[in-house]
């Protein structure tokens, strides 16, 4: 797909640049003429949306760091100073805080889209694995960031998450102490978390570069999951997908703006508007919504080490998906059984999220949620490690269309417009 370059420098200056640093050529080939399947739907616009989210977080974050003070005694007040005194500080902080939620919302849609259309399958395994790495980095960044306001939930969230490492046999306690730089979460912890929170987004940006690079070797997958066979199957990225991505991006920004301007604390926790107090734990420690499914898994396992292993395993599992899926068909559109199992899987994730948000001893209609969470956790792992390999072998896929163009334009595929 990344065939010979079609870049044709127009002026002498462009030619001069091109011979020395072919950056305009790269931009031209990857964002202008890049042949893209003509049938990408709304779910394929989230790559662009995610790039936007990363940029917004980095820009707002750099600005917030101009006013934030990473000191256990001053951090909370410095955030309030941003909210009250800094010009537009409230706006920038609310964008950054809600931006994290919007970022994860987009990344989950992006991941489920990849799962549904089999975008992780040969030849796109590395794109998927790099994506899992980005997701991990995002979780780490979000966690470090959530600690910085130094409210009650910041402090106790940091305490609980760092204590996960103490579950590791023999060296666990030493690792926890090493992470804290003290006997408990404190000033030293806050400072290193701030440093890492500032660093990681730039690493993410770099890995995103690899993600896109890897994508541009085989080109986009598409909702049919079939390969591009002729130029008729594709359209140039610009203007077709630039304008489509831009339109859906603006819709996404509208949703974003509704939260920032009209429900800025919707995703927040009231406890985080109280300064950190190492002597009083809030009654319910809840992570941000995007980590709730993993938190529910952790809590549903009565053994500390096992709980941590299960939670970590849930993420590590994602790396193996390209080889766990044995089907020769990519898209769930043509996989009648897998389609259902996929939606059950999505449901299990939502249920896990719900369980994670509720208190430990909560029940729904008399059923203790801990058992609901166990069931959903079991399905999570069974989906990847049992159903995916087995169903792939025994399922009879529906008949695939001959080509993307035929599917979109109809059999009679009259002479294409181009």
């Amino acid at each position: 797909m990344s065939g010979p370059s079609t870049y044709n420098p127009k002026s002498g200056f462009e030619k001069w640049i091109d011979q020395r640093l072919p950056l305009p050529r790269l931009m031209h080939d990857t964002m202008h003429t890049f042949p893209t399947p003509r049938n990408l739907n709304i779910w394929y616009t989230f790559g662009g949306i995610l790039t936007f989210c990363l940029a917004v977080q980095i820009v707002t974050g750099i600005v917030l760091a101009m006013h934030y003070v990473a000191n256990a005694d001053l951090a909370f007040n410095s955030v309030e100073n941003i909210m009250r005194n800094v010009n537009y500080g409230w706006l920038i902080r609310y964008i950054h805080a809600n931006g994290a939620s919007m970022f994860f919302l987009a990344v989950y849609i992006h991941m489920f889209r990849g799962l549904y259309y089999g975008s992780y399958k040969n030849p796109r395994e590395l794109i998927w694995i790099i994506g899992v790495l980005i997701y991990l980095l995002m979780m780490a960044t979000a966690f470090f960031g959530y600690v910085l306001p130094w409210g009650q939930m910041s402090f106790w969230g940091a305490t609980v998450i760092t204590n996960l490492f103490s579950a590791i046999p023999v060296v666990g306690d030493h690792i926890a102490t090493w992470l804290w730089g003290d006997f408990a979460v404190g000033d030293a912890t806050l400072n290193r978390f701030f440093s890492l929170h500032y660093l990681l987004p730039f690493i993410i940006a770099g890995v995103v570069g690899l993600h896109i690079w890897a994508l541009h070797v085989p080109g986009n997958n598409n909702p049919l999951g079939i390969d591009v066979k002729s130029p008729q199957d594709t359209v140039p990225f610009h203007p077709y997908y630039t304008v489509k991505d831009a339109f859906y991006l603006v819709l996404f920004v509208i949703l974003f703006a509704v939260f920032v301007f009209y429900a800025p604390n919707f995703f927040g926790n009231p406890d985080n508007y109280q300064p950190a107090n190492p002597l009083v734990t809030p009654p319910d420690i809840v992570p941000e919504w995007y980590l709730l499914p993993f938190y529910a898994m952790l809590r549903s396992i009565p053994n500390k080490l096992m709980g941590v292993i299960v939670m970590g395993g849930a993420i590590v599992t994602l790396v193996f998906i390209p080889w766990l899926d044995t089907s020769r068909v990519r898209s769930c559109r043509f996989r009648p059984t897998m389609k259902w199992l996929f939606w059950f899987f999505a449901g299990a994730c939502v249920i896990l999220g719900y369980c994670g948000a509720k208190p430990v001893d909560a029940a729904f209609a008399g059923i203790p949620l801990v058992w609901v969470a166990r069931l959903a956790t079991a399905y999570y792992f069974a989906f990847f490690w049992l159903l995916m390999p087995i169903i792939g072998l025994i399922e009879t896929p529906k008949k695939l269309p001959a080509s993307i163009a035929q599917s979109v334009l109809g059999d009679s595929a009259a002479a294409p417009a181009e």
Partner: protein
Amino acid sequence: MAATTSDAGTRRDFLYVASGAMGAVGVAAAAWPFIDQMNPSSAALAAGTTEVDISTIQPGQQVIFKFRGHPLFVRRRTPKEIEESKAVPVSALPDPLAENANLAANAEATDANRATKPEWLVLIGVCTHLGCTPTVSTPQMPQGEYGGWLCHCHGSQYDTAGRIRKGPAPRNLDIPVYTFLSDTKIKVG
């Protein structure tokens, strides 16, 4: 057929230009909060007023206070210093303007315009060249030739009314907005 294509092309071009223009306007508008956040915050602005107690300052002495993060010179001048200052014709000054925030921008740099009460000189202690703090001149330790101040960074010399007389500084030392709340108290800012 050709006409239709060209119409469609025009309409498409218009929509491109409209989207691009609106996008540019949006980005420009969104940039403002990110620029304005670097300006002084409302807390910094509210802290922009300082009250200083001048009751303990002796004639011939200068006391330095802090005002908006800068040194604030309050000098109680001796009659001799006042006379020296009054003797200088405005036409002989490199900067003939009073640079007094309490007066009109074009007020002349006479001694009366530099000090409302002749005995008290209130100045921002920032050299108008590149922002160093000039050193005060006293009969025991004279600084420069004019009995006022000498900036050690690049050798600007000020007289006993804080006016630039020699050296690279372009303007007289600035006089902030101030009022006498009483004989011993000044509100600055």
